[in-house]
């Protein structure tokens, strides 16, 4: 016999439960099933066993996209963390107009990714863009950011760092939580600024760094919007493939999107999604396991 309270509880949580079942659980289950089928949304799916997974591991473009994605994960994640932390550190200094600076640095992170890309495509214009014009003043000829396969990913990393306000704001909150007493005792012991940062600040906020690291990794494993915009808006002629110059912007999520919604190979796309899920889970797990070596949780 189910208790009345249980029924009431379930009824109250039903909006979420139903929404979760219909819009999250069911699509997840469906994509798992579709990953074992040949399905193009128009004709009914046919069972193909592990063919789609075999395709994922054998297709050159998938490997290319994994390499490109790992590049972003490996470089963009730490850079955006470092930029975010440095900004937070600077904005934690008590100066006049502190709140204005904080707002200014936070604003870019609330600009939609598409708008950010459009603005940056203008900033990165090799002839008249802000960056190359500035470089020109000091006698350096700037690169063709978005058309040179060597520079496309660094350009995207720069765009990412510009939007590090979200990371910054969380670090800022964490920095304000570091007990003043620790700094004071360190000062009495004669610690300098760098020493205090390395031995007090970093260990104290390390749980937040772990959190930001994992969020950052997941974000860059799924990297899509900016690259998609850049690849489809530039004159590189790669509009059809959405891959950017010499496929330098063919990220995993872009290839997945292309397989699903351009070529309608839902089986391939679903298998790719599950492989990405496994990769992301493994990486997150490894980081969690190793985190006890560098993350310190202060107990009260």
């Amino acid at each position, binding site marked *: 016999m189910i208790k009345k309270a249980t029924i*009431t509880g379930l*009824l*109250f949580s*039903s*909006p979420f439960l*139903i*929404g979760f079942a*219909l819009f999250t659980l069911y699509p997840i289950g469906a994509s798992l099933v579709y990953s074992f089928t040949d399905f*193009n*949304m*128009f*004709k009914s799916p046919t069972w193909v066993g592990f063919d789609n997974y075999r395709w994922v591991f054998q297709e050159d473009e998938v490997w290319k996209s994994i390499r490109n994605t790992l590049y972003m994960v490996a470089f963009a994640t730490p850079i955006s963390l470092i930029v975010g932390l440095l900004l937070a550190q600077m904005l934690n200094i008590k100066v006049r107009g502190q709140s204005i600076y904080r707002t200014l640095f936070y604003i870019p992170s609330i600009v939609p990714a598409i708008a950010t890309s459009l603005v940056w495509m203008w900033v990165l*214009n*090799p*002839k*008249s863009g802000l960056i190359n014009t500035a470089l020109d003043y000091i006698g350096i*000829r700037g*690169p*063709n*950011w*978005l*058309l*040179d*396969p060597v520079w496309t990913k660094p350009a995207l990393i720069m765009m990412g760092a510009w939007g590090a306000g979200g990371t910054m704001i969380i670090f800022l909150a964490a920095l304000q939580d570091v007990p003043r007493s620790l700094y004071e005792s360190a000062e009495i012991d004669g610690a300098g600024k760098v020493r205090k940062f390395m031995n007090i600040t970093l260990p104290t906020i390390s749980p937040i760094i772990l959190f930001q690291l994992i969020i950052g990794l997941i974000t860059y494993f799924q990297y899509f919007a900016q690259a998609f915009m850049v690849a489809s808006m*530039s*004159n*590189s*002629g*790669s509009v*059809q*493939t959405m891959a950017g*110059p*010499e*496929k330098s912007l063919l990220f995993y999520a872009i290839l997945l999107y292309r397989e699903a*919604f*351009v*070529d*309608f190979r839902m089986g391939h796309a679903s298998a790719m999604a599950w492989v990405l899920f496994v990769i992301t889970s493994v990486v997150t797990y490894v980081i969690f396991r190793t985190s006890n070596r560098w993350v310190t949780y202060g107990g009260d």
Partner: protein
Amino acid sequence: MRAKNSKKAASMLVTVMLLSTVLAACGGNNGNKEGGASSSPAASANESSKPVGEKSKVSVWYLWGGAEGEALEQIIKDFNASQDKYLVEGLSVPDEQKIKVAIAGGKGPDLTDSFDFVVPQYAQQGIALPLDDLIARDGYDVSDFVPAALASGNFDGKQYALPLNVNFSVMYYNKKLLADAGFTEPPKTSAELYDVMVKTTKVNSNGTIDVLGSPSYPSEAYLFNALAYGFGSTYVNEDASALTFNNEGTLAAMNMIRDYNTKFGVDNIRQIQASGKWLDPTDPFLIGKQAIRFDGPWLSATIKSKQIDVDYGIAALPYLEGKPETAGSGITGSSIFYIAKTSKNVDGAWEFMKYLYSAEPLAKFLSLMGNVPATKSAMSSPAMKDMVDSDQVIPLTMSPNLKSIPHFAKRSDFDKALAEQLELMYNLKKTPEETMSKLEGVLSATLK
């Protein structure tokens, strides 16, 4: 107790309401005549005075926006006023993926447009509805279409789409830049073209390019097919059973791009390509910084509509040196309209299609867009006089040397492989010879 009960009743009510909203959102696929979520404010505003009840709605989504979209809306308005049976509602949806996904979900348009090279893919994926039954039922006369254009809507013996226009590149040249470099006439052959490209290119003291002499803007990828076909190349034979890609025309096109890029530097050319936006007031040709441009007649329409001050001329694409019999060569393609397989108003879509393709509406629509129509009746319609430079462009469409790439199942794989290998050649990472031998292998594999 009462309070408790009424709370409970309220929670039940809320739950039921939420449930029904969710279910309604999920189960809206049962065919009513609405034909998807589309509704054009423009169309409904125009028609609001008429009784809409008896008319069956036809939704037409199109990729165009701006002036071109307005031109189509004008045709839709004319159609709606011309009869009482159907009400066409137009909607600009510039994202083709969105249209395809909407069609797949049964919430898409009845009629929509695309380019002819998607026909094999859309036929095989079941996106487009074959029109043969409708054509046969109404005895619709397809002989009015330019045969090559009509064929571009055909795959595996079925007509999946009807062509709107005959798209092909012509050579635009900046008269002043050519005159400054000592040329009184546009280049007629490949050798003359290269000479003009080199001599009109102006280089700054730091090596960067000020004036681009070559048609490499917007990109070599945009240029290549026109250049190669202009030099008399064909990529596959007539029934797409064999590769004919390795020929002197293709090689000449590859070598010309390689030579120019070697001489002026890939980085410098990329800089120009990235600095301006195609058909925008920053487009190098429109600001007088590009001497030669291969583009469609819409460039003339753009120059006129944006009131751009550039003194240009139009000529046929140059032919391969020593092969005057191939003069007037080029590659054609078409924009197409097709009825969605999941259309809920096939008859209405077909009625509007027939109207759109009749002489006057088609000529009116395409002259506004600056396109050459795909039907003979529209081409000779007086309305075409309104098309900018029609007197120079339309004669060029009569050339018997214009060709199109015949359809085959793996056309999109073919295009992808071609673009991928050629890009390495443009960037001087592979020689034309290496590219050719690689492409012969990968392209052959995509043919049936």
